[in-house]
Structure formats: C-alpha cells, structure tokens
C-alpha cells in the first residue's frame, strides 16, 4: 500500500487506515501484568475505538491457563510468558502464533531479574556467590528457567551446585524470602520494587548481563483472528503499537504527558501507587513490535534439551511478524 507513509510519524497517519464499518469485538486474555501496557493505553486512549474495535479483557491466573482459551477460540489475543507449554500446544495442533513483543528487559533496570534476600545483600555481590544457594524460580521449562540457566552459565556455576526451588507464584517467593527459606529468586516488577521498599529483598545485578535479548513475553494471536478477521487484526495491531509507542515515549524517552499514561497503568495493573511507577524497572516494549526471534529459538532448544518438548516445530509458522509488518506499513516505523 502507501509506502510513503512509512516515513512519517504515526500520529498523522491514522486516516490512512479507515475505521471498520461495523464495530468488532476483540477479547484479550491478560494476567494483569504491566507488560500489557500496549493494550491498556490503546484502550484507554481510544486508539481501538478509533478503528471501531471494542476490546474486552479476560484475566487469567497465569499465562498457561490462557492456552485452552485461545485454542477454543474464546479469546482472540493473549499475552503470555514464553514457555515450553506454548511449543507443546503448538506441536499438538493448537495453532497459536507469536505476533508481537510484549516484554523484554531494559539494560540496567530489568523488570524481570534476580533478587537476593535482604540480609544477604552484602555478602552476595557477584555471580559466583550464588554457588550453594537456594534459588526460587516460578516455572520449570519456562522463560524463567531459561534465564536462570543463562545466569548460572554466566556465573560459571553448574546446576548441581545450587538448589533449584520451584515456586508457583512470585508472591510465594516474597513470603519465602521473608521466612528465609530461599536466598535468591527470579522476581518480577512491581514486586521487585515493593520488596526493596519493604526490605524483603534487593536486586541482584541485572538480567541483561547474561540475557540481554531475552524474549520474556509475547502477544499471541489465534489463527482464526489472524486469517479470517485480518482487517480487524491489522487495525488491532496498529492501535496496539500506538499504545506501545506512547508507553515508550513516557518511560524510555521520558516525555511528559502529565501522568496520563501512568494513571492508565495504575488503573489496569495491581501497582496502584502512581509514585512507584517512577521507581519500578519497567518492561521493555518494542515500539515496532518485533521480537527477538533468535532468543525464542534458543529457548526452544533449551526446553528440548530438558526433554520438555514433544514433537517438532516449524518456526516460520510460529513466529508470524506479517501482521506487525502490515501495521508498520500503515502507521510507519518508529524512530528512536
């Protein structure tokens, strides 16, 4: 279509993508985490509405529970943490695709990183110190496990030299820290900041040290949504990316919008304290929507080595950036 629009700023280009003639509803599965920023902002700022798209959020206990919902066609789009279960479900014929970035770490202030128990913060200063420690991770054969493994590799410590503790919830880790049951945990924002403020734990270095391009969360699309409702999907993606860009402007470029975005975030996530939003390490969201494809493949390798994968996969089919590209064509590429 219009290749000239790619040179221009997104804001001015909305008219090139006309609103739908009939209002269309899109159901988004969410787990209430901050990485859904793109969805929240696009909704509250009316970007979806501009395209005559009505969105509805369905909240799940965790991202794995969304899979059956995607497969059953109950939701069109889901935001999920990368894990073996995605690959397995795809191998089993549940045709979900990774369609955009929904979270990666930013240098120096990772939103998903290791924390160390408050009373150990002085004795634990560098990676080799993790030897012999109890480390809590929230899933086995998920991105957490992958990052944990990367960290150990980086530290030069073998998996036998530390104790892997599987804890189903990040909050359980807080509790276990308080009870001195674990020494380290792979924790997520805003709990990292909350825990720091309550002297439960402190950040332990930064995840970008060993996994700079880890793809933590992704936007998933149901194939039906991507094919049969392509016109809706394109507009959806365009609105999403506009939301992500607003987010990027505020949190990465520190453009001032008088707190509108922050209050949207506080409204949609469990972090209600708007002050804290200036402190937390926010998730990185690619304003152009692309994901770290290579890292996704690495993760897949890792899960496969662990024997957690059943069946073979065709990555070209899983990672589907065509929607992002189509949307970028329409609203233009974001320039840093």
């Amino acid at each position, binding site marked *: 279509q219009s290749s000239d629009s790619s040179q221009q700023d997104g804001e001015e280009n909305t008219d090139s993508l006309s609103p739908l003639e009939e209002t269309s509803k899109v159901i988004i599965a969410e787990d209430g985490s901050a990485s859904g920023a793109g969805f929240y902002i696009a909704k509250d700022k009316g970007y979806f509405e501009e395209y005559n798209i009505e969105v509805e959020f369905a909240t799940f*206990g965790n991202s794995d*529970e969304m899979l059956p919902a995607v497969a*059953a066609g109950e*939701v069109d789009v889901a935001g999920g943490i990368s894990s073996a279960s995605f690959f397995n479900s795809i191998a089993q014929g549940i045709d979900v695709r990774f369609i955009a970035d929904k979270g990666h770490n930013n240098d120096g202030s990772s939103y998903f990183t290791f924390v160390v128990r408050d009373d150990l913060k002085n004795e634990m200063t560098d990676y080799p110190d993790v030897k012999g420690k109890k480390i809590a991770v929230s899933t086995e054969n998920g991105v957490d496990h992958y990052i944990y493994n990367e960290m150990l590799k980086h530290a030069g410590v073998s998996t036998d030299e530390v104790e892997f503790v599987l804890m189903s919830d990040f909050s359980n880790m*807080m509790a276990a820290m308080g009870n001195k049951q674990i020494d380290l945990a792979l924790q997520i924002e805003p709990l990292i900041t909350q825990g720091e403020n309550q002297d439960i734990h402190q950040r332990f270095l930064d995840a970008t040290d060993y996994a700079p391009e880890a793809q933590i969360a992704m936007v998933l699309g149901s194939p039906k949504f991507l094919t049969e409702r392509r016109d809706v999907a394109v507009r959806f993606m365009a609105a999403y990316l506009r939301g992500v860009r607003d987010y990027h402007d505020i949190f990465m470029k520190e453009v001032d919008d008088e707190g509108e975005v922050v209050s949207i975030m506080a409204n949609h996530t*469990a972090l209600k304290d708007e002050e804290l939003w200036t402190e937390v390490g926010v998730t990185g969201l690619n304003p152009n929507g692309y994901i770290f494809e290579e890292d996704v493949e690495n993760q897949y390798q890792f899960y496969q080595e662990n024997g957690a994968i059943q069946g073979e996969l065709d990555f070209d089919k899983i990672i589907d950036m065509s929607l992002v590209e189509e949307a970028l064509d329409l609203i233009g590429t974001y320039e840093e």
Partner: protein
Amino acid sequence: MQKKVSIPQLITIFSPICLLLLWEFCSQFAILDPRFFPAPTLIIQTLVQMGESGELFTHITVSLTRIIIGFLLGVIPAICIGLLMGMYRYFRHFFSPIIMIFMPIPTIAMLPIILILFGIGEFSKVITIAISVFFPVAINTAAGVANIDKIYLEVAKNYQANAKDFFFKIALPGSLPVMLEGIQMGQAIALLTIVAAEMIGASSGIGYLIWMNYKAFLLPQMYVGLLLISFFGYFFSLSLRGIERKLLPWK
C-alpha cells in the same frame, strides 16, 4: 437466669475477639511479621477504604451471584440424581462408581477442562462451583433416602401411594435431614471454590480480589478478601441452619 443463659453466648463472641486481639498484638509488636500478617486494624482500614470507593460492592455482588447460581446449579441435579440413586438400586450401582472416580479430582485440575467445555464466560465460573458442590450433595441425598426407616416405605405401600406421591410424601421429606447436611457441606465447598472459579478469565469478584492482590503482594487487600469469604461462610451457614429449622419443623 438471664445471666446464666448468656455465658455460652459471651464465650462465642469472646473467642474470635480474643484471637483478633492476639493477632493485633503479635502484629504490632512484630512477633508475627507485619509485612505478611498485617494487623487487623490495618485490614479493617483497608476494608473501609475499599468499601468507600464502591469497588468492593461490585466484587461482592459479582461473587455472590456466581456462588448462588453455581450452588443451585450443583445442588439441583445432585438432589435429583441422589434421590434416584437412593430409590433405585440399579441407578445407585451405575452412578456410585462414576461419582467415586470423579470426586477426588481437584478443582484446580478441572479448570482447563471446564474452560474448554464451557468457555471463559460466567458459565464456566458457575459450573466450577456447581461441580464441586455436586458430589457431597448427591452422596448425602442418596444416603438420606437409603436411611429412611423401612417402616415408612411399608406404610406408603400399605396405603397404596403411587410413585409420585411416594416421591413427594416419603422419599423427599424423609431424606431431607441428611440431604440438608450435604447442602450445608456444599455451601462450604462453594465458597472454597470461588477463588479457583475466578481464576478463569474473571475480572471481578472476591476470589479475583484475593488472588490478584496476592499476586501483587498487596496483603492487606488480600486479607480483606479472606475476611469477606469468612464472613459470607458464617452468614450462609447460619442462613442455611435457619432454613433447615423452617423445613424440618418435625425434627
């Protein structure tokens, strides 16, 4: 006289207050870690704040609707199947192994199956509650019918009751006391299941309140949720006892 009667009542009121005071004390003096066990006063404060904003009210109505509908949806078929099981032994022999097999399956493990079969709408939440309520009620109803003194069956037969009369005059009222015990249990289970039920694509409700706030580690808010569950548990129990007294004037 008057004084004597109220000693047990005094104790009944005194015991939870006692517990609360102990908790308050331990929390204030950090014997229990106040980060994890916020003082009751703080929880009450949070409750009031949440109450003022009105959001609490929505959560409560949403959950209560789910609990009540789910409860009814579980209890009604349970009573029907239970009565049939009690009355016809072939029915009993057919259903009891099925109940035995499905009963031990934990609610959390059923969630994905429910999701696939019933989607993510209200219905799936309600059905989660219904399923967990179903088993104890069905079992107790069957036991209730089986426990009806044989002599009443013979009286009915001797006085030529037809099947319908037999059902409504003998089987149903006769099994009611044991059935109501099962319903009482079902009520407790309905509440126990609300958190799990509201893990399926919910965005409001007391269960949602509890686990969302736990995930966000906002413990006072989570305790508010627990407090509400407790309160409704107590309230439902008492209401059911009241209904029981109405339904069983002959006990």
